[in-house]
C-alpha cells in the first residue's frame, strides 16, 4: 500500500481533478450542464423509455465496449463500474441500470478525441443489467451489457 500517495490525494479535492479535465478541454461543461441536459431521459422510470429519449434504443451489441463491474456487488450503494469504449470516435457514453427507479444513471460527452474511459460508482437497489451505450461522431450506436447481482448477503459456506 502506498501510504504517501493516499495522504497526498486525500488533500486534493475531487473538484480540482475535474477542473483540470475541464481546463484540458476533455469535458464540455456548458453542454453537459445546460444545453444538452435531457430531462425526459434522466427522469424516465423505464429503461426502454430512457434509452428512447436518449436516441439510444437502436444500439447494436458490441464487444468493443468493455464494462468492468462485479458479478455480485459488495455494497449496492457504491457499485464500482469501469467503462472503456474502444470504438473509434466515441463521443458519448450512457449508462443505464434497468431496475433502478431512474434507469439512466449518467451520460458523458467527450471532445477533442478524448479516450472514452470512465470510472464511476453507481447506486443499485436490485440485481439488474447495467447497459452501456456508446455513440460515435457519425451517430452510430453500440451497446454492451453486464449483469450485477445485488444480494442481502449472509449464509456463506
Amino acid at each position, binding site marked *: 500500500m502506498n501510504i504517501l500517495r493516499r495522504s497526498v490525494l486525500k488533500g486534493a479535492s475531487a473538484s480540482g481533478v475535474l477542473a483540470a479535465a475541464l481546463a484540458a478541454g476533455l469535458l464540455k461543461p456548458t453542454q453537459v450542464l445546460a444545453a444538452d441536459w435531457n430531462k425526459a431521459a434522466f427522469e424516465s422510470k423505464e429503461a426502454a423509455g430512457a434509452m428512447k429519449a436518449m436516441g439510444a434504443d437502436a444500439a447494436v451489441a458490441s464487444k468493443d465496449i468493455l464494462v468492468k463491474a462485479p458479478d455480485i456487488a459488495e455494497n449496492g450503494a457504491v457499485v464500482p463500474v469501469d467503462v472503456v469504449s474502444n470504438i473509434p470516435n466515441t463521443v458519448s457514453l450512457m449508462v443505464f441500470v434497468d431496475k433502478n427507479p431512474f434507469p439512466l444513471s449518467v451520460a458523458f460527452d467527450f471532445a477533442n478525441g478524448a479516450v472514452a474511459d470512465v470510472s464511476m460508482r453507481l447506486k443499485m437497489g436490485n440485481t439488474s443489467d447495467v447497459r452501456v451505450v456508446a455513440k460515435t461522431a457519425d451517430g452510430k450506436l453500440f451497446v454492451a451489457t453486464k449483469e450485477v447481482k445485488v444480494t442481502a448477503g449472509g*449464509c*456463506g459456506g
Partner: protein
Amino acid sequence: MSSMNRREFLQVLAAASAAGFALNSRELLAAQGADKHYDLPRYGNVHFLHFTDSHAQLQPVYFREPNVNIGFGGAAGKVPHLVGENLLRAFNIKPGSLEAHAFTYLDFEQAAKTYGKIGGFAHLATLIKQLRGGRPNALLLDGGDTWQGSATALWTKGQDMVDACKLLGVDMMAPHWEFTLGHERVKEIIAKDFKGKIDFLAQNVKTNDFGDPVFSPYAMREMNGVKVAVIGQAFPYTPIANPRWMVPDWTFGIQDENMQKVVNEARGKGAKVVVVLSHNGMDVDLKMASRVSGIDAILGGHTHDGVPHPVQVKNAGGITLVTNAGSNGKFLGVLDFNVSNGRIAGFRYKLLPVFANLLPADAAMAAHIAKVRAPYKAKLEEPLAVSEGLLYRRGNFNGSWDQLILDAMMEVRGADIGFSPGFRWGTSILPGQAITFEHLMDQTAITYPTSTLTEMSGEQIKTILEDVGDNLFNPDPYYQQGGDMVRVGGLSYSCDPSAKMGNRIRDMRLGDTPLEAAKKYKVAGWAPVGEGVTGEPIWEVVGKWLRDKKVVTPRKLNQPKLIGMEKNPGMA
C-alpha cells in the same frame, strides 16, 4: 490374530458390528487391508500436500457427507454434484469400504462406529510427516477456513490454529473465514506469526481506494530442480457472505483477468508448474479453469466436496486439473507431478481420508492440542444433553443439527418462523452420544453469533428465501456463493431450483395457512452480517434449551418440497 483366522475374525466383527458395538479397533481396520491405506509411493519430482476447510477441528470428529448436493444446467449429474451410490459408481469405489464411508453418507451411523472418527491434527501431522519422508521438499498447502469453527479457535482468536499450522509445517495458505477475525487480527498474524514461515496468499484482495494488492498474490519455490509457483485465491464473496464491516477497506471478487496476469508473470519468471490454492468453491474453480490458461492445477476448497479424482478442464492453454479436498480435517490431497525437460510428463492424485484409528497421534501436535484445551477443558466437556438421533449439518437443505437449532430458537424466543444460515461446516453426533458444549460450538462458533428476533412481512420472508436460493442455485457459478440454502423452521414451502430468481420459492405455509405478503411474522435467526446488532449469542440460547431437555428426540426435518429434481444424481 493367532487364535482365529482372518475370515473368522471378520465374521465375528461383522456380527458384533451388526449388534451395534463400536468396532473402531486397529485390528479390524488392519484385517480389511486398511493399514496399507497410506502406503502411497512417490511419483515424479514435484509434490503438493493439500488440506482445506478444517474449520479448526483439532481433535478427531465424526462428519457425515451430504445426501443432497444438487447441480443442474451444465453441472447436473457432474462432479461435485453426485451423492451416495452415484458418487461410488462415478469413482469406482466399492460399497461398504473404508473409502465409501469417507466419501458418502451411506450407512453412516454403522460405518462411523466401525471405522471411528476422522481427522484430528495430531493424526494429520503423522500422515504429513510420513508422506514428506518419501517426497522431499513437498509443499504443504492450507486452503483456508482453518482459524474458525471451534470454541478454542474463537476464544484464542485463531491462535490455537495458527500455532498448530506452524507445527504442521504449512508453507502457504489462502483465506476465507480467517477474515471474520477482523482485518487487524489477520494483519497481526501475518506480521507476527507467519513472517518468514507461512505465505498468506490472495491475488484477488485489493484496497477499496486504489486497487492496490493487500497480500502477496503468489509465491515461488525451487523444488527438486523445478521452479514452481503457488497463487492464492481468497473466497471472492467474503464481504457479502460474511460481515462487510470486518474487512472495511478491502475489495474481493473472482478477478479472472488479474489471475491470468499473475499466471503469466509466474511463467515469465520461469515457473514450470503453476498451481492455484483456491477458496472459490468447486463450481467457480471449474469455470475459472475454463477461462484462465496456464494453470496446471487448482487445489480447491470452500464447497467442502470430497472429490476422489481431479476434474480435467480444457482451456486455451491446455488442461487444468481441478480438485476439492473436503472439510473438517477429513482428507489430505496428494498431488505429484513428473516434470522433465521443463514440461509436465504426468501426474498422480490421491485424496486420502484421515482415519484417526489408522494413524497414531503425533506427540508434539498432541501436546500442543492438550495445552490449548487445558484452560477450557471443563467448559468444553460439559454434557448438555443426549441425542437420540443422528445430528449432522451438511446438505443443500435442513440437516438435523440445524433443525435442532431452529427448534430451540423458535421455542425459546416464541417465534413463528426460524432462519439458520446454510453453513457447510459443523461436526456430526451419533445416536446415543452426549452433546457437549464443544459440540454446540462446532455448529455456532463465529465472531457474529448474535441471535435475533425480528418482525418480517410475508413479502420480506419470500425475498430472503429467493435471494439465498439464487446464491445457491444460480446457473452461473460466478453468481453463487457456495453455502447451502438457509435453514427454515416453522414455514413449509416448495422450491424449484431450476426456475428463475423470484420464482423458485412457492406455496409458503404456516401449518395449513398460506403466508400473507402484508402480514407481519415473528422470525428468529442468528449470525446477522450487519454491524451493531445486539442480543444473546446463539450458543447461549440453544445451550439453555439443551440443558433443559436433557434428552433430545430425533428431529423432524423441515425439508422443502422440491420440484423437478426427482432424477437428479445430486439427491438421494
